[in-house]
Protein backbone atom coordinates (compact mmCIF):
# COMPACT_ATOMS: atom_id res chain seq x y z
CA UNK A 1 0.00 0.00 0.00
CA UNK A 2 1.39 3.41 -0.90
CA UNK A 3 1.99 5.79 1.93
CA UNK A 4 -0.74 8.14 0.74
CA UNK A 5 -3.43 5.49 0.57
CA UNK A 6 -2.21 4.19 3.94
CA UNK A 7 -2.60 7.70 5.36
CA UNK A 8 -6.09 8.08 3.90
CA UNK A 9 -7.26 4.65 5.03
CA UNK A 10 -5.88 4.89 8.58
CA UNK A 11 -7.02 8.48 9.01
CA UNK A 12 -10.55 7.59 7.98
CA UNK A 13 -10.52 4.70 10.45
CA UNK A 14 -9.44 7.10 13.19
CA UNK A 15 -12.09 9.60 12.06
CA UNK A 16 -14.75 6.90 12.37
CA UNK A 17 -13.49 6.21 15.88
CA UNK A 18 -13.72 9.88 16.86
CA UNK A 19 -17.19 10.29 15.38
CA UNK A 20 -18.27 7.15 17.24
CA UNK A 21 -17.04 8.75 20.47
CA UNK A 22 -18.94 11.95 19.67
CA UNK A 23 -22.11 10.01 18.86
CA UNK A 24 -21.85 7.81 21.96
CA UNK A 25 -21.08 10.72 24.28
CA UNK A 26 -22.74 13.82 22.78
CA UNK A 27 -22.82 15.66 26.13
CA UNK A 28 -19.33 17.17 25.71
CA UNK A 29 -20.20 18.60 22.29
CA UNK A 30 -23.62 19.80 23.38
CA UNK A 31 -22.29 21.43 26.56
CA UNK A 32 -19.94 23.50 24.47
CA UNK A 33 -22.90 24.79 22.43
CA UNK A 34 -24.49 26.11 25.57
CA UNK A 35 -22.22 29.18 25.84
CA UNK A 36 -22.81 30.68 22.37
CA UNK A 37 -26.54 29.93 22.44
CA UNK A 38 -26.93 31.43 25.90
CA UNK A 39 -25.00 34.55 24.90
CA UNK A 40 -27.06 34.89 21.74
CA UNK A 41 -30.33 34.79 23.69
CA UNK A 42 -28.97 36.96 26.50
CA UNK A 43 -27.75 39.71 24.24
CA UNK A 44 -30.81 39.67 22.02
CA UNK A 45 -33.59 39.34 24.59
CA UNK A 46 -32.10 40.81 27.78
CA UNK A 47 -29.58 43.42 26.69
CA UNK A 48 -30.92 43.78 23.14
CA UNK A 49 -32.69 47.11 23.48
CA UNK A 50 -29.72 48.87 25.06
CA UNK A 51 -27.15 47.21 22.78
CA UNK A 52 -28.99 47.92 19.55
CA UNK A 53 -29.12 51.62 20.44
CA UNK A 54 -25.36 51.79 19.87
CA UNK A 55 -25.37 50.07 16.48
CA UNK A 56 -25.49 51.86 13.14
CA UNK A 57 -25.50 55.36 14.61
CA UNK A 58 -28.38 54.62 16.98
CA UNK A 59 -32.00 53.75 16.44
CA UNK A 60 -31.39 50.19 15.19
CA UNK A 61 -34.10 47.76 16.26
CA UNK A 62 -33.74 44.32 17.73
CA UNK A 63 -33.72 42.47 14.40
CA UNK A 64 -30.80 44.56 13.22
CA UNK A 65 -28.92 43.70 16.39
CA UNK A 66 -29.61 39.98 15.86
CA UNK A 67 -28.14 40.35 12.41
CA UNK A 68 -25.15 42.15 13.88
CA UNK A 69 -24.19 39.55 16.51
CA UNK A 70 -24.95 36.28 14.69
CA UNK A 71 -21.67 36.17 12.67
CA UNK A 72 -19.70 36.61 15.90
CA UNK A 73 -21.79 33.99 17.69
CA UNK A 74 -21.10 31.51 14.87
CA UNK A 75 -17.34 32.10 15.18
CA UNK A 76 -17.65 31.74 18.94
CA UNK A 77 -19.39 28.40 18.36
CA UNK A 78 -16.30 27.23 16.51
CA UNK A 79 -14.10 28.47 19.36
CA UNK A 80 -16.22 26.48 21.81
CA UNK A 81 -16.09 23.30 19.74
CA UNK A 82 -12.31 23.31 19.59
CA UNK A 83 -12.09 23.53 23.37
CA UNK A 84 -13.76 20.13 23.24
CA UNK A 85 -11.12 19.03 20.75
CA UNK A 86 -8.29 20.00 23.12
CA UNK A 87 -9.97 18.05 25.91
CA UNK A 88 -10.62 14.94 23.85
CA UNK A 89 -7.11 14.92 22.35
CA UNK A 90 -5.68 15.20 25.85
CA UNK A 91 -7.97 12.44 27.15
CA UNK A 92 -6.93 10.26 24.26
CA UNK A 93 -3.21 10.76 24.89
CA UNK A 94 -3.54 9.67 28.50
CA UNK A 95 -5.23 6.42 27.39
CA UNK A 96 -3.25 3.26 26.79
CA UNK A 97 -4.80 2.86 23.36
CA UNK A 98 -2.52 5.56 21.94
CA UNK A 99 0.51 3.54 23.00
CA UNK A 100 -1.02 0.64 21.10
CA UNK A 101 -1.49 2.79 17.99
CA UNK A 102 2.13 3.89 18.20
CA UNK A 103 3.34 0.29 18.13
CA UNK A 104 1.24 -0.60 15.08
CA UNK A 105 2.33 -0.34 11.47
CA UNK A 106 -0.18 2.40 10.70
CA UNK A 107 0.23 5.91 9.34
CA UNK A 108 1.71 7.77 12.27
CA UNK A 109 -0.24 10.98 11.93
CA UNK A 110 -3.59 9.26 11.41
CA UNK A 111 -4.59 9.60 15.08
CA UNK A 112 -4.19 13.37 14.90
CA UNK A 113 -5.66 13.73 11.42
CA UNK A 114 -8.71 11.78 12.60
CA UNK A 115 -9.12 14.21 15.47
CA UNK A 116 -8.76 17.26 13.22
CA UNK A 117 -11.27 16.14 10.60
CA UNK A 118 -13.67 14.95 13.29
CA UNK A 119 -13.38 18.27 15.06
CA UNK A 120 -13.97 20.29 11.90
CA UNK A 121 -17.06 18.19 11.11
CA UNK A 122 -18.35 18.73 14.63
CA UNK A 123 -17.69 22.46 14.36
CA UNK A 124 -19.67 22.62 11.11
CA UNK A 125 -22.54 20.71 12.67
CA UNK A 126 -22.49 23.00 15.70
CA UNK A 127 -22.49 26.08 13.47
CA UNK A 128 -25.48 24.69 11.59
CA UNK A 129 -27.31 24.05 14.88
CA UNK A 130 -26.59 27.50 16.32
CA UNK A 131 -27.33 29.05 12.94
CA UNK A 132 -30.72 27.34 12.93
CA UNK A 133 -31.50 28.82 16.35
CA UNK A 134 -30.45 32.25 15.06
CA UNK A 135 -32.77 31.88 12.07
CA UNK A 136 -35.57 30.76 14.40
CA UNK A 137 -35.29 33.96 16.46
CA UNK A 138 -35.28 36.15 13.38
CA UNK A 139 -31.83 36.19 11.75
CA UNK A 140 -31.95 36.67 7.98
CA UNK A 141 -29.07 37.06 5.59
CA UNK A 142 -29.63 40.09 3.35
CA UNK A 143 -28.80 39.86 -0.34
CA UNK A 144 -26.07 37.20 -0.06
CA UNK A 145 -25.39 35.53 -3.42
CA UNK A 146 -24.72 31.81 -3.81
CA UNK A 147 -21.05 32.63 -4.20
CA UNK A 148 -21.09 34.63 -0.98
CA UNK A 149 -22.81 31.74 0.84
CA UNK A 150 -20.14 29.39 -0.42
CA UNK A 151 -17.41 31.80 0.63
CA UNK A 152 -19.00 32.15 4.08
CA UNK A 153 -19.13 28.38 4.43
CA UNK A 154 -15.52 28.06 3.26
CA UNK A 155 -14.42 30.70 5.76
CA UNK A 156 -16.14 28.88 8.63
CA UNK A 157 -14.51 25.56 7.68
CA UNK A 158 -11.08 27.14 7.19
CA UNK A 159 -11.34 29.00 10.49
CA UNK A 160 -12.48 25.82 12.27
CA UNK A 161 -9.55 23.89 10.82
CA UNK A 162 -7.03 26.54 11.86
CA UNK A 163 -8.31 26.72 15.44
CA UNK A 164 -8.51 22.91 15.58
CA UNK A 165 -4.81 22.47 14.79
CA UNK A 166 -3.94 24.91 17.56
CA UNK A 167 -6.34 23.13 19.94
CA UNK A 168 -4.75 19.76 19.11
CA UNK A 169 -1.38 21.18 20.14
CA UNK A 170 -2.94 22.49 23.36
CA UNK A 171 -4.41 19.05 24.03
CA UNK A 172 -1.04 17.39 23.41
CA UNK A 173 0.87 19.57 25.88
CA UNK A 174 -1.77 19.33 28.63
CA UNK A 175 -1.21 16.78 31.38
CA UNK A 176 -4.93 16.22 31.99
CA UNK A 177 -8.39 17.15 30.75
CA UNK A 178 -8.82 20.09 33.18
CA UNK A 179 -5.55 21.62 32.06
CA UNK A 180 -6.54 21.11 28.43
CA UNK A 181 -9.83 22.91 29.06
CA UNK A 182 -7.99 25.81 30.73
CA UNK A 183 -5.29 26.03 28.06
CA UNK A 184 -7.96 26.26 25.38
CA UNK A 185 -9.90 28.98 27.22
CA UNK A 186 -8.70 31.78 24.88
CA UNK A 187 -10.77 30.09 22.17
CA UNK A 188 -13.97 31.15 23.99
CA UNK A 189 -12.60 34.33 25.57
CA UNK A 190 -11.20 35.95 22.41
CA UNK A 191 -14.64 36.22 20.73
CA UNK A 192 -15.79 38.28 23.75
CA UNK A 193 -12.95 40.73 23.06
CA UNK A 194 -13.82 41.02 19.40
CA UNK A 195 -16.46 42.83 17.37
CA UNK A 196 -19.02 40.11 18.20
CA UNK A 197 -21.24 42.26 20.43
CA UNK A 198 -20.12 45.83 19.82
CA UNK A 199 -18.21 47.48 16.96
CA UNK A 200 -14.49 47.89 17.55
CA UNK A 201 -14.69 51.68 17.18
CA UNK A 202 -17.02 51.80 20.19
CA UNK A 203 -14.23 50.38 22.38
CA UNK A 204 -11.59 52.41 24.31
CA UNK A 205 -8.90 53.72 22.00
CA UNK A 206 -5.98 51.79 23.55
CA UNK A 207 -7.90 48.54 23.19
CA UNK A 208 -9.04 49.01 19.60
CA UNK A 209 -5.86 47.68 17.91
CA UNK A 210 -5.99 44.50 20.03
CA UNK A 211 -9.66 43.91 19.28
CA UNK A 212 -9.28 44.75 15.62
CA UNK A 213 -6.34 42.51 14.73
CA UNK A 214 -6.88 39.44 16.94
CA UNK A 215 -7.90 36.41 14.89
CA UNK A 216 -11.62 36.55 15.58
CA UNK A 217 -12.49 40.10 14.54
CA UNK A 218 -11.27 39.92 10.90
CA UNK A 219 -13.04 36.55 10.50
CA UNK A 220 -16.24 37.94 12.03
CA UNK A 221 -16.12 41.10 9.92
CA UNK A 222 -15.58 39.03 6.78
CA UNK A 223 -18.49 36.73 7.60
CA UNK A 224 -20.64 39.77 8.35
CA UNK A 225 -19.74 41.27 4.98
CA UNK A 226 -20.51 38.04 3.14
CA UNK A 227 -23.87 37.42 4.83
CA UNK A 228 -25.08 40.98 5.37
CA UNK A 229 -23.31 43.02 2.72
CA UNK A 230 -21.33 45.24 5.09
CA UNK A 231 -17.88 46.54 4.17
CA UNK A 232 -15.22 43.78 4.31
CA UNK A 233 -12.19 45.87 3.38
CA UNK A 234 -8.83 44.46 4.39
CA UNK A 235 -10.50 42.08 6.89
CA UNK A 236 -10.85 39.34 4.26
CA UNK A 237 -7.10 39.10 3.72
CA UNK A 238 -6.29 39.39 7.38
CA UNK A 239 -8.76 36.59 8.15
CA UNK A 240 -7.25 34.32 5.51
CA UNK A 241 -3.73 35.15 6.72
CA UNK A 242 -4.67 34.34 10.33
CA UNK A 243 -6.26 31.04 9.29
CA UNK A 244 -3.20 30.05 7.28
CA UNK A 245 -0.78 31.09 10.00
CA UNK A 246 -2.67 29.33 12.79
CA UNK A 247 -3.19 26.18 10.74
CA UNK A 248 0.48 25.91 9.73
CA UNK A 249 1.76 26.81 13.19
CA UNK A 250 -0.70 24.46 14.88
CA UNK A 251 0.17 21.68 12.47
CA UNK A 252 3.93 21.82 13.06
CA UNK A 253 3.49 22.33 16.78
CA UNK A 254 1.14 19.34 17.07
CA UNK A 255 3.34 17.18 14.86
CA UNK A 256 6.45 17.86 16.94
CA UNK A 257 4.61 17.23 20.21
CA UNK A 258 3.04 14.03 18.92
CA UNK A 259 6.27 12.63 17.51
CA UNK A 260 8.34 13.06 20.65
CA UNK A 261 8.81 10.03 22.90
CA UNK A 262 5.78 9.62 25.13
CA UNK A 263 6.29 10.14 28.83
Amino acid at each position, binding site marked *: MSSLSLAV*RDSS*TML*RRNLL*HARRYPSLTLNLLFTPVMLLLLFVYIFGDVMSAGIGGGGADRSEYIAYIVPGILMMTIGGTVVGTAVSVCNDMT*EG*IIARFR*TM*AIHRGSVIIGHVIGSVLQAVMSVVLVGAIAVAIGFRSTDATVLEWLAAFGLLVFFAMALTWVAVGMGLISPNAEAAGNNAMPMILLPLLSSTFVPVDAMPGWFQPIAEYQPFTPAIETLRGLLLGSEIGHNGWIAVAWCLALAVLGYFWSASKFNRDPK
Partner: protein
Amino acid sequence: MTNPAIAADGLRKSYGDKVVLDGVDLTVPEGTIFALLGPNGAGKTTAVKILSTLLSPDPASGEIHVGGHDLTADAQAVRAAIGVTGQFSAVDGLITGEENMLLMADLHHLSKREGRRVAAELLERFDLVEAAKKPASTYSGGMKRRLDIAMTLVGNPRIIFLDEPTTGLDPRSRHNMWQIIRELVSDGVTVFLTTQYLEEADELADRIAVLNDGKIAAQGTAEELKRLIPGGHVRLRFSDPAAYQDAASALREASRDDEALSLQIPSDGSQRELRSILDQLDSAGIEADELTVHTPDLDDVFFALTGTDPQPGQSSLPSQPSQPKEAVRR
Protein backbone atom coordinates in the same frame (compact mmCIF):
# COMPACT_ATOMS: atom_id res chain seq x y z
CA MET B 1 19.21 -22.40 13.19
CA THR B 2 16.86 -19.53 12.57
CA ASN B 3 17.40 -15.90 13.40
CA PRO B 4 16.41 -14.94 16.92
CA ALA B 5 13.06 -13.15 17.23
CA ILE B 6 14.64 -10.51 19.44
CA ALA B 7 18.31 -9.68 19.65
CA ALA B 8 19.45 -6.66 21.64
CA ASP B 9 23.05 -5.74 22.16
CA GLY B 10 23.90 -3.26 24.88
CA LEU B 11 20.45 -1.73 25.22
CA ARG B 12 20.76 1.61 27.01
CA LYS B 13 18.33 4.27 28.12
CA SER B 14 18.76 7.14 30.47
CA TYR B 15 16.81 10.27 31.31
CA GLY B 16 19.35 12.93 32.20
CA ASP B 17 21.48 11.49 34.98
CA LYS B 18 19.04 8.71 35.72
CA VAL B 19 20.16 5.51 34.05
CA VAL B 20 17.20 3.20 33.49
CA LEU B 21 18.82 0.55 31.30
CA ASP B 22 22.55 0.14 31.54
CA GLY B 23 23.66 -2.11 28.71
CA VAL B 24 21.16 -4.96 28.52
CA ASP B 25 21.90 -7.89 26.19
CA LEU B 26 18.95 -10.08 25.27
CA THR B 27 18.43 -12.90 22.82
CA VAL B 28 15.06 -14.54 22.41
CA PRO B 29 14.81 -17.51 20.02
CA GLU B 30 11.73 -17.80 17.83
CA GLY B 31 8.74 -19.61 19.24
CA THR B 32 9.81 -19.40 22.88
CA ILE B 33 8.60 -17.57 25.95
CA PHE B 34 11.08 -15.18 27.47
CA ALA B 35 10.46 -13.61 30.87
CA LEU B 36 12.07 -10.43 32.07
CA LEU B 37 11.85 -10.67 35.83
CA GLY B 38 12.42 -7.80 38.19
CA PRO B 39 11.01 -5.60 40.92
CA ASN B 40 9.19 -2.32 40.33
CA GLY B 41 11.50 0.26 38.86
CA ALA B 42 14.01 -2.24 37.52
CA GLY B 43 13.48 -1.01 33.97
CA LYS B 44 11.25 -3.82 32.67
CA THR B 45 8.62 -1.54 31.18
CA THR B 46 11.25 0.71 29.63
CA ALA B 47 12.82 -2.33 27.97
CA VAL B 48 9.46 -3.39 26.54
CA LYS B 49 8.71 0.15 25.38
CA ILE B 50 12.01 0.34 23.53
CA LEU B 51 11.77 -3.11 21.95
CA SER B 52 8.20 -2.33 20.83
CA THR B 53 9.29 0.99 19.18
CA LEU B 54 7.40 3.15 21.67
CA LEU B 55 10.58 4.74 23.02
CA SER B 56 13.83 5.27 21.21
CA PRO B 57 16.96 3.67 22.70
CA ASP B 58 19.93 5.84 23.60
CA PRO B 59 22.34 6.26 20.68
CA ALA B 60 25.03 4.50 22.72
CA SER B 61 23.07 1.24 22.46
CA GLY B 62 24.35 -1.50 20.22
CA GLU B 63 22.36 -3.11 17.44
CA ILE B 64 18.82 -4.09 18.23
CA HIS B 65 16.84 -6.39 15.96
CA VAL B 66 13.24 -7.38 16.42
CA GLY B 67 11.69 -9.85 14.02
CA GLY B 68 14.85 -9.58 11.93
CA HIS B 69 14.44 -5.83 11.40
CA ASP B 70 16.65 -3.07 12.73
CA LEU B 71 14.73 -1.29 15.47
CA THR B 72 15.82 2.25 14.67
CA ALA B 73 16.29 2.03 10.91
CA ASP B 74 13.14 0.12 10.10
CA ALA B 75 10.71 0.72 12.96
CA GLN B 76 7.67 0.34 10.72
CA ALA B 77 8.72 -3.20 9.70
CA VAL B 78 9.25 -4.06 13.37
CA ARG B 79 5.75 -2.76 14.13
CA ALA B 80 4.29 -4.98 11.43
CA ALA B 81 5.81 -8.03 13.12
CA ILE B 82 4.87 -7.35 16.73
CA GLY B 83 1.87 -7.05 18.98
CA VAL B 84 2.01 -5.24 22.30
CA THR B 85 -0.12 -5.48 25.41
CA GLY B 86 1.11 -2.84 27.81
CA GLN B 87 0.87 -2.71 31.55
CA PHE B 88 -2.03 -0.29 31.44
CA SER B 89 -4.92 -1.47 29.40
CA ALA B 90 -4.68 -0.34 25.81
CA VAL B 91 -8.36 -0.60 25.04
CA ASP B 92 -10.64 2.24 24.03
CA GLY B 93 -12.98 2.43 26.99
CA LEU B 94 -15.53 4.65 25.25
CA ILE B 95 -16.50 2.06 22.66
CA THR B 96 -17.63 -1.56 22.98
CA GLY B 97 -15.38 -4.60 23.01
CA GLU B 98 -16.55 -5.56 19.55
CA GLU B 99 -15.92 -2.06 18.22
CA ASN B 100 -12.42 -2.21 19.69
CA MET B 101 -11.82 -5.45 17.79
CA LEU B 102 -13.19 -4.03 14.53
CA LEU B 103 -11.04 -0.93 14.99
CA MET B 104 -7.98 -3.18 15.14
CA ALA B 105 -9.16 -5.09 12.08
CA ASP B 106 -9.51 -1.82 10.16
CA LEU B 107 -6.05 -0.67 11.22
CA HIS B 108 -4.61 -3.98 10.03
CA HIS B 109 -6.36 -3.33 6.71
CA LEU B 110 -8.45 -6.46 6.80
CA SER B 111 -11.51 -6.51 4.56
CA LYS B 112 -14.88 -5.89 6.24
CA ARG B 113 -15.80 -9.56 6.07
CA GLU B 114 -12.39 -10.79 7.21
CA GLY B 115 -12.37 -8.23 10.03
CA ARG B 116 -15.74 -9.38 11.30
CA ARG B 117 -14.68 -13.01 11.13
CA VAL B 118 -11.43 -12.42 13.04
CA ALA B 119 -13.16 -10.22 15.63
CA ALA B 120 -15.91 -12.77 16.25
CA GLU B 121 -13.40 -15.61 16.47
CA LEU B 122 -11.18 -13.85 19.01
CA LEU B 123 -14.11 -12.61 21.11
CA GLU B 124 -15.27 -16.21 21.26
CA ARG B 125 -11.81 -17.53 22.10
CA PHE B 126 -11.37 -15.03 24.93
CA ASP B 127 -14.83 -15.57 26.34
CA LEU B 128 -16.01 -12.04 25.59
CA VAL B 129 -19.04 -12.76 23.40
CA GLU B 130 -21.55 -11.79 26.08
CA ALA B 131 -19.76 -8.53 26.88
CA ALA B 132 -19.03 -7.69 23.23
CA LYS B 133 -21.76 -5.06 22.96
CA LYS B 134 -20.91 -3.29 26.22
CA PRO B 135 -18.50 -0.36 26.52
CA ALA B 136 -15.02 -1.60 27.41
CA SER B 137 -14.87 0.81 30.35
CA THR B 138 -17.44 -1.35 32.13
CA TYR B 139 -15.27 -4.48 31.93
CA SER B 140 -13.59 -6.07 34.95
CA GLY B 141 -9.79 -6.09 35.17
CA GLY B 142 -9.54 -9.62 33.85
CA MET B 143 -11.94 -8.94 30.97
CA LYS B 144 -10.04 -5.81 29.98
CA ARG B 145 -6.82 -7.75 29.95
CA ARG B 146 -8.39 -10.45 27.78
CA LEU B 147 -9.79 -7.86 25.38
CA ASP B 148 -6.39 -6.22 25.33
CA ILE B 149 -4.69 -9.46 24.28
CA ALA B 150 -7.46 -10.27 21.81
CA MET B 151 -6.85 -6.87 20.18
CA THR B 152 -3.14 -7.58 20.05
CA LEU B 153 -3.81 -10.83 18.22
CA VAL B 154 -5.93 -9.32 15.43
CA GLY B 155 -2.92 -8.66 13.21
CA ASN B 156 -1.53 -12.17 13.74
CA PRO B 157 1.76 -10.88 15.18
CA ARG B 158 4.77 -13.22 15.23
CA ILE B 159 6.22 -11.60 18.34
CA ILE B 160 4.10 -10.55 21.28
CA PHE B 161 5.16 -8.29 24.13
CA LEU B 162 3.22 -8.62 27.36
CA ASP B 163 4.11 -6.14 30.06
CA GLU B 164 3.08 -7.58 33.43
CA PRO B 165 0.12 -9.43 31.95
CA THR B 166 -1.17 -10.72 35.28
CA THR B 167 -0.49 -7.83 37.66
CA GLY B 168 -3.68 -6.97 39.48
CA LEU B 169 -5.57 -10.05 38.35
CA ASP B 170 -7.24 -12.44 40.75
CA PRO B 171 -5.79 -15.98 40.94
CA ARG B 172 -8.35 -17.45 38.57
CA SER B 173 -7.86 -14.79 35.91
CA ARG B 174 -4.13 -15.21 36.36
CA HIS B 175 -4.31 -18.91 35.59
CA ASN B 176 -6.55 -18.19 32.60
CA MET B 177 -3.93 -15.74 31.37
CA TRP B 178 -1.18 -18.33 31.75
CA GLN B 179 -3.23 -20.76 29.70
CA ILE B 180 -3.71 -18.11 27.01
CA ILE B 181 0.02 -17.39 26.90
CA ARG B 182 0.87 -21.09 26.58
CA GLU B 183 -1.58 -21.42 23.69
CA LEU B 184 0.05 -18.50 21.91
CA VAL B 185 3.41 -20.21 21.85
CA SER B 186 1.95 -23.48 20.66
CA ASP B 187 1.07 -21.55 17.49
CA GLY B 188 4.73 -20.70 17.00
CA VAL B 189 4.52 -17.16 18.31
CA THR B 190 7.37 -15.68 20.33
CA VAL B 191 6.33 -14.17 23.65
CA PHE B 192 8.34 -11.61 25.58
CA LEU B 193 6.79 -10.99 28.96
CA THR B 194 7.73 -9.07 32.06
CA THR B 195 6.73 -10.06 35.54
CA GLN B 196 7.47 -9.44 39.18
CA TYR B 197 6.64 -13.00 40.06
CA LEU B 198 9.20 -15.76 39.97
CA GLU B 199 6.38 -18.28 40.06
CA GLU B 200 4.97 -16.85 36.87
CA ALA B 201 8.29 -16.86 35.05
CA ASP B 202 8.82 -20.40 36.28
CA GLU B 203 5.40 -21.54 35.02
CA LEU B 204 5.71 -20.02 31.58
CA ALA B 205 9.15 -19.09 30.44
CA ASP B 206 11.73 -21.08 28.52
CA ARG B 207 14.31 -18.53 29.52
CA ILE B 208 14.34 -15.94 32.28
CA ALA B 209 16.46 -12.84 32.68
CA VAL B 210 16.57 -11.12 36.03
CA LEU B 211 16.71 -7.37 35.63
CA ASN B 212 17.87 -5.29 38.54
CA ASP B 213 18.74 -1.63 38.48
CA GLY B 214 18.94 -1.55 34.69
CA LYS B 215 21.30 -4.50 34.41
CA ILE B 216 20.76 -8.19 33.79
CA ALA B 217 21.71 -9.82 37.08
CA ALA B 218 21.31 -13.38 35.80
CA GLN B 219 19.93 -15.16 32.79
CA GLY B 220 18.99 -18.76 32.11
CA THR B 221 16.27 -21.36 32.39
CA ALA B 222 14.21 -21.49 35.55
CA GLU B 223 16.25 -24.49 36.68
CA GLU B 224 19.54 -22.75 36.08
CA LEU B 225 18.43 -19.70 38.00
CA LYS B 226 17.17 -21.69 40.92
CA ARG B 227 20.51 -23.41 41.19
CA LEU B 228 22.07 -20.00 41.55
CA ILE B 229 19.83 -19.22 44.44
CA PRO B 230 20.70 -20.73 47.79
CA GLY B 231 17.23 -20.06 49.17
CA GLY B 232 15.75 -23.45 48.24
CA HIS B 233 15.92 -26.02 50.99
CA VAL B 234 14.14 -28.81 52.80
CA ARG B 235 13.69 -28.39 56.53
CA LEU B 236 13.29 -31.31 58.88
CA ARG B 237 12.11 -30.79 62.44
CA PHE B 238 12.43 -33.28 65.23
CA SER B 239 11.08 -33.46 68.76
CA ASP B 240 13.31 -36.34 69.80
CA PRO B 241 16.93 -35.19 70.28
CA ALA B 242 18.22 -38.68 69.56
CA ALA B 243 16.44 -38.85 66.21
CA TYR B 244 17.77 -35.41 65.47
CA GLN B 245 21.34 -36.49 66.12
CA ASP B 246 20.89 -39.62 63.99
CA ALA B 247 19.47 -37.62 61.12
CA ALA B 248 22.23 -35.05 61.35
CA SER B 249 24.84 -37.74 60.92
CA ALA B 250 22.88 -39.49 58.15
CA LEU B 251 22.39 -36.30 56.12
CA ARG B 252 25.87 -34.88 55.82
CA GLU B 253 25.01 -31.86 53.71
CA ALA B 254 22.46 -30.63 56.23
CA SER B 255 23.11 -27.51 58.26
CA ARG B 256 22.12 -27.94 61.87
CA ASP B 257 20.09 -25.90 64.25
CA ASP B 258 20.66 -27.63 67.57
CA GLU B 259 18.35 -25.33 69.53
CA ALA B 260 15.31 -25.95 67.35
CA LEU B 261 16.26 -29.56 66.62
CA SER B 262 15.91 -28.91 62.92
CA LEU B 263 18.00 -29.63 59.85
CA GLN B 264 18.16 -27.62 56.68
CA ILE B 265 19.14 -29.41 53.48
CA PRO B 266 19.80 -27.40 50.30
CA SER B 267 17.38 -28.59 47.62
CA ASP B 268 15.46 -27.41 44.60
CA GLY B 269 12.36 -29.05 46.00
CA SER B 270 12.05 -31.53 43.13
CA GLN B 271 10.44 -34.88 43.65
CA ARG B 272 13.74 -36.63 42.92
CA GLU B 273 15.65 -34.72 45.58
CA LEU B 274 12.86 -35.11 48.11
CA ARG B 275 12.77 -38.84 47.53
CA SER B 276 16.51 -39.14 48.01
CA ILE B 277 16.25 -37.33 51.35
CA LEU B 278 13.36 -39.51 52.43
CA ASP B 279 15.20 -42.63 51.29
CA GLN B 280 18.21 -41.66 53.38
CA LEU B 281 16.00 -41.11 56.40
CA ASP B 282 14.15 -44.40 55.83
CA SER B 283 17.30 -46.42 55.48
CA ALA B 284 18.58 -44.91 58.73
CA GLY B 285 15.23 -45.66 60.33
CA ILE B 286 14.58 -42.08 61.33
CA GLU B 287 11.26 -40.32 61.27
CA ALA B 288 11.07 -36.53 61.22
CA ASP B 289 8.13 -34.81 62.89
CA GLU B 290 7.74 -32.29 60.14
CA LEU B 291 9.13 -31.78 56.67
CA THR B 292 8.81 -28.45 54.89
CA VAL B 293 9.94 -27.57 51.38
CA HIS B 294 10.99 -24.00 50.85
CA THR B 295 11.35 -23.01 47.21
CA PRO B 296 13.24 -19.81 46.44
CA ASP B 297 11.08 -16.77 45.89
CA LEU B 298 11.88 -13.45 44.33
CA ASP B 299 13.18 -12.10 47.62
CA ASP B 300 15.71 -14.91 47.66
CA VAL B 301 16.61 -14.23 44.05
CA PHE B 302 17.30 -10.62 44.77
CA PHE B 303 19.13 -11.28 47.94
CA ALA B 304 21.30 -13.77 46.14
CA LEU B 305 21.87 -11.91 42.91
CA THR B 306 22.21 -8.37 44.12
CA GLY B 307 23.38 -8.76 47.68
CA THR B 308 20.80 -6.29 48.87
CA ASP B 309 18.26 -7.32 51.42
CA PRO B 310 14.72 -6.54 50.37
CA GLN B 311 13.30 -3.92 52.67
CA PRO B 312 11.35 -5.57 55.44
CA GLY B 313 7.62 -5.11 55.13
CA GLN B 314 8.09 -3.80 51.61
CA SER B 315 8.57 -7.08 49.91
CA SER B 316 8.99 -6.88 46.17
CA LEU B 317 6.52 -9.71 46.13
CA PRO B 318 3.05 -8.41 46.86
CA SER B 319 0.62 -10.68 48.60
CA GLN B 320 -0.47 -12.27 45.33
CA PRO B 321 1.51 -15.40 44.55
CA SER B 322 2.43 -16.93 47.85
CA GLN B 323 5.30 -19.24 47.18
CA PRO B 324 4.40 -22.81 47.99
CA LYS B 325 5.55 -23.82 51.41
CA GLU B 326 4.07 -27.25 51.50
CA ALA B 327 4.18 -29.05 54.73
CA VAL B 328 4.32 -32.81 54.59
CA ARG B 329 3.51 -34.38 57.89
CA ARG B 330 4.49 -37.92 58.53
